């Protein structure tokens, strides 16, 4: 497997898993308007995933985009652990999305400059969507943080619990470094300071307290995940696994 293939897969996987989580909100959101918004975001994420999987499939030359999404097992997925965290209450999802959207915004802004034309094009397209996602999650974070006492409390709890997944997203492993040196990949670690500024800014508006860095999770790039991913994949891949020879 080429480095570029794996790099592309990582991005695709995070998009797919977040899309899957967001699709779980369908018919369950606090308002109908929000139901549509959550579905739109989910559709955007699946669209991004599809774009990156198509490219990965091209690079691989053996498996199709669908095979990459539906026939790999839990140790072969490279998404950030942050995106596989459960939806929980609406506030939990907003916090999770906000933390990841902020990263995505900065990440795609850089990836748009990639020497790899396809990655660059995908990044430019995704950035338009992510700007909207970030706006959505930021606005909601502020509404919930600065809404009622109850909403502030619930959102703070979510923030405290999800904080441990915000370190992994800035990691650079050997593969990242190799591709960064070729002008293809993004320096994730260089995004941290802007991410901090943006997050701190919004947290302040939302009257939420930034948690301390304590134990920070890691492992997504190595295919090490939380126990959630197994269940997500079982559900998502069921039909393709149960009917391996069928075309859908």
């Amino acid at each position, binding site marked *: 497997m080429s480095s570029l293939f794996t790099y592309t897969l990582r991005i695709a996987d995070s998009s797919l898993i977040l899309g*899957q989580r967001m*699709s*779980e909100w*369908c*018919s*369950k*959101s*606090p*308002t*109908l*308007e*929000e*139901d*549509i918004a959550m*579905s*739109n975001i*989910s*559709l955007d994420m*699946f*669209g991004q*995933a*599809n774009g990156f*999987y198509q490219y990965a499939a091209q690079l691989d030359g053996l498996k199709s*985009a*669908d095979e990459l*999404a*539906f026939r790999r097992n839990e140790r072969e997925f490279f998404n950030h652990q942050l995106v596989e965290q459960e939806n929980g*209450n*609406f*506030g939990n999802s907003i916090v999770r999305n906000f933390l990841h959207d902020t990263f995505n915004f900065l990440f795609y802004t850089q990836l748009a400059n990639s020497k790899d034309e396809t990655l660059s094009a995908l990044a430019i397209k995704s950035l338009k969507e992510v700007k909207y996602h970030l706006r959505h999650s930021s606005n909601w974070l*502020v*509404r*919930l943080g*600065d*809404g*009622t006492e*109850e*909403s502030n409390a*619930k959102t703070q709890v979510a923030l405290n619990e999800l904080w441990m997944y915000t370190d992994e997203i800035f990691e650079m492993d050997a593969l990242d470094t190799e591709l960064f040196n070729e002008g293809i990949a993004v320096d994730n670690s260089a995004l941290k300071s802007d991410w901090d500024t943006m997050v701190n800014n919004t947290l302040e508006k939302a009257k939420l307290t930034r948690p301390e860095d304590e134990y920070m999770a890691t492992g997504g790039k190595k295919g090490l995940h939380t126990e959630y991913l197994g269940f997500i994949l079982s*559900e*998502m891949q*069921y*039909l*393709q696994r149960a*009917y391996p*020879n*069928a*075309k*859908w």
Partner: protein
Amino acid sequence: MNEIKFQERIDAEKKIEPKDWMPDAYRKHLIRQISQHAHSEIIGMQPEGNWITRAPSLRAKMILLAKVQDEAGHGLYLYSACETLGISREELVQQLHDGKAKYSSIFNYPTLSWADMGAVGWLVDGAAIVNQVSLQRTSYGPYSRGMVKICKEESFHQRQGYEIMAEMAKGTPEQKAMAQDALDRFWWPSIMMFGPQDSDSPRTGNAMKWKIKRQTNDDLRQDFINKTVGQAELIGLTIPDPDLKWNEQRGHYDFGEMDWDEFWSVVNGNGPCNKQRLAHHKKAHDEGQWVRDAAKAYAKKQELVAN
């Protein structure tokens, strides 16, 4: 005097708009019909949404999600049209939760396999299209405009379903069996979506007189059956009605007796999913209360700051 002028407008195919005088019974009839139509769209998201997370390909997943999202949108257009009659969405939702308002009983059936996504899209959306195309000419302006918008979006829904059925019918033996099974379970409930036979439908008289309804239940049902039989034959699936036969004289398909006991049973609350559908809706509503409260509280704070 008002009644006469009102009926003249109706007879002249003029639209009635929110500010116009209307008989109280007309207003009440519309509120009931539009709100139940809206509730149906929203409740329908549940059986259809049931397979989003398990859709068997990226494309299928996105299409299904877009479709179900459209249903939410349709519900919103209809609530919006209904609100012009002097009732709030909150009141309408309360009526739904209290069991005072109904929704299309087709959604009280479970979606048990992926093929059900095909059957529902093809048959249920198909039946809805027949009904909604007719309603585009309804006399109440906001409802009519809502229907035009909905019809534009609905045809992709039916195509999505029919495509699934067609692909499965020519797929593996297991896929074909799954598709046939879905058709077997959804055929009769789909044709019963058009409601009781005209002879058993007391509200039809006024609805037709006021041009709220443009065609009767039986006419719409016949239209749907005529359109659909050929579609099933084309993809090699069998409609589970041994009495289905082309009648040259009538120029329509003859079809078998519907099970009205089952129909009324489900309409009156005793279908496989009635309790579940309402419980799901209530749960989402209740669990979202703190979010709606927060948004309101935040908005109030901003207003205070602005002033």
